[in-house]
């Protein structure tokens, strides 16, 4: 089945991004396809390449990037939400791309299910 994922909260402050990551890993392990992971609202902060968590904690941003590389995931950051919050190409982490909200609507249309994490 084709899943689309929406992540609405930033890293560390909320667990939403962690839960979405675990969900995506479990879906891939079951042979499902991830059509796209879209980052909206504060979720755009997950794409900051400057994020540097303590070394004894998980690295949310890097984990998304690695997963994207391994599984050719399409990680899309909403441009309007990102501009407000100071996420731009110059601080965008590897594995993410910035695009319009149309990418979320398209994911809703193309995927069999849209699963949202966080508010």
């Amino acid at each position: 089945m084709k899943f689309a994922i929406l992540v609405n909260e930033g890293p560390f402050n909320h667990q939403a991004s962690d839960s979405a990551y675990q969900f995506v890993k479990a879906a891939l392990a079951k042979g499902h396809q991830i059509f796209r992971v879209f980052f909206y609202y504060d979720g755009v902060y997950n794409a900051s390449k400057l994020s540097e968590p303590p070394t004894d904690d998980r690295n949310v941003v890097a984990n998304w990037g690695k997963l994207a590389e391994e599984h050719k995931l399409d990680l899309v950051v909403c441009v309007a939400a990102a501009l407000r919050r100071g996420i731009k190409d110059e601080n965008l982490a590897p594995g993410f791309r910035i695009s319009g909200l149309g990418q979320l609507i398209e994911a809703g249309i193309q995927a069999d299910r849209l699963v949202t994490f966080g508010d």
Partner: protein
Amino acid sequence: MSLLHTVSKSPFERTNLQSCLKLATPGSAILLYEDAVIGAMQGTALADLVADAAKSCKLHVLGPDLAARGLDASKVLPGIAVVDYAGFVDLAEQASAVQAWC
């Protein structure tokens, strides 16, 4: 097919679960995860409300979030199934759509 309703915020802190229960129709699936897992436990002030909901909806709770919080999976309310992330994926697959109350 019916909806999967997901709830991640604590029902002691926010009213998301209560709103969910008002709009979830009989036969729908509900998954409690993240801070919402406390709502699945026996002996809480919300246990009656949740046990009641489990009679008409299919309630589930995410095991990894119970374990993280030191909550004993053997003490969840009767009628609530404990699932892992793979089970979360299955619930989403089996639903007609997923409504996140956050």
